[in-house]
């Protein structure tokens, strides 16, 4: 039975009313500990498990083993159709200056596509790591082409981006960043402190060609993985 991305997380369809169009580039933003990697990995794992498709999760920050340990601790299992690629070996053996990480990532995608022609999902964890290893200005210019290439490949892509503080004085401080204009969607994750204690939330800020709620909804992690509950206000 096929599964839509909006049905891959329990409760996601409460905030995402239409399916994410294929080939969309989605930014997943938030501070550390807001479950960015967990949310994306969980969506991809559930999707490839239910559909005869493949996904590629590229991690720049962690090794495959440490990423899987983290996912395991969240109750998220890796599925056969979900491939993880880390840059650990490459970065140990080559100088960072010898690596054009965007070009290399595109080649990595091509390699997996050669092997699995039904590779439809892609994730990069994270854009920040990519920028920290590369020259920022050059990288920013390359990002535009990178986004276009991902769309041309027909990959629905999740690009994880850590933001220290998502709101300043009610304004989205990060909204001036190029990535937000270029992306087809932005899913923001955060932590909110209130009378009821500290809660994690998810908010869809933008999703081109798909209706969605604007409110922040509570995000929890339980024995059955990630759940999205009601509005947090």
């Amino acid at each position, binding site marked *: 039975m096929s599964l839509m991305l909006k049905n891959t997380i329990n409760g996601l369809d409460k905030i995402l009313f239409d399916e994410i169009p294929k080939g969309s580039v989605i930014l997943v933003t938030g501070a550390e500990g807001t479950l960015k990697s967990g949310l994306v990995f969980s969506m991809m794992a559930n999707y490839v498990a239910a559909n005869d498709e493949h996904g590629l999760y590229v991690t720049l920050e962690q090794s495959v083993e440490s990423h899987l340990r983290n996912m395991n601790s969240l109750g998220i299992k890796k599925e056969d159709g979900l491939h993880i*690629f880390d840059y650990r*070996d*490459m970065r*140990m*053996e*080559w100088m960072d200056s010898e*690596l054009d990480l965007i*070009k*290399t*990532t*595109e*080649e*990595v995608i*091509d*390699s*997996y596509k050669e*092997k699995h022609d039904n590779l439809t999902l892609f994730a990069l964890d994270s854009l920040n790591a990519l920028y920290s290893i590369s020259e920022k200005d050059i990288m920013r210019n390359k990002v535009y082409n990178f986004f276009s290439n991902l769309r041309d490949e027909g990959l629905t892509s999740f690009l994880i981006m850590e933001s220290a503080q998502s709101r300043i004085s009610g304004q989205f401080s990060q909204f001036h960043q190029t990535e937000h204009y270029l992306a087809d969607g932005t899913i923001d994750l955060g932590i909110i402190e209130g009378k009821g204690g500290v809660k994690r939330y998810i908010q869809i800020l933008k999703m081109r060609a798909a209706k969605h709620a604007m409110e922040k909804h509570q995000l929890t992690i339980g024995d059955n993985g990630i759940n999205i509950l009601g509005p947090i206000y």
Partner: protein
Amino acid sequence: MKTSVENAMDACESQEDSRKKFVDRIIKTNREVFIMSSLLDNQMCGYDIIKEIFTRCDVFLSQGAVYPVLYTLEEDGLLRAEYRKGDMRTKRYSLTPKGREIAEKDVEIFAKALKQVTLLLKR
């Protein structure tokens, strides 16, 4: 105006460029065979494999084209990866018995296929 010697040299260079392009394309498309054949005699890391193929064939296989192949072959049980004692930085690959069997067979089939293509072209 160029002399006849210069023109002949240009023709040679352009022929050499075309040959290199063909070799490049053949090796890149069949990199799995070349990567596995590099491991027939030695245990190597990704860096060594790229260097070895460059030295042997004068073709640079990029990191993005080599490392995914290594990971997939390892996942498929054709390669074994291990760290050297005291060196946790470099993962070195070797062929498993199943990988060796496939590598030897693939090298042989590949050589036969190339020979066949050459014969077909010369007809």
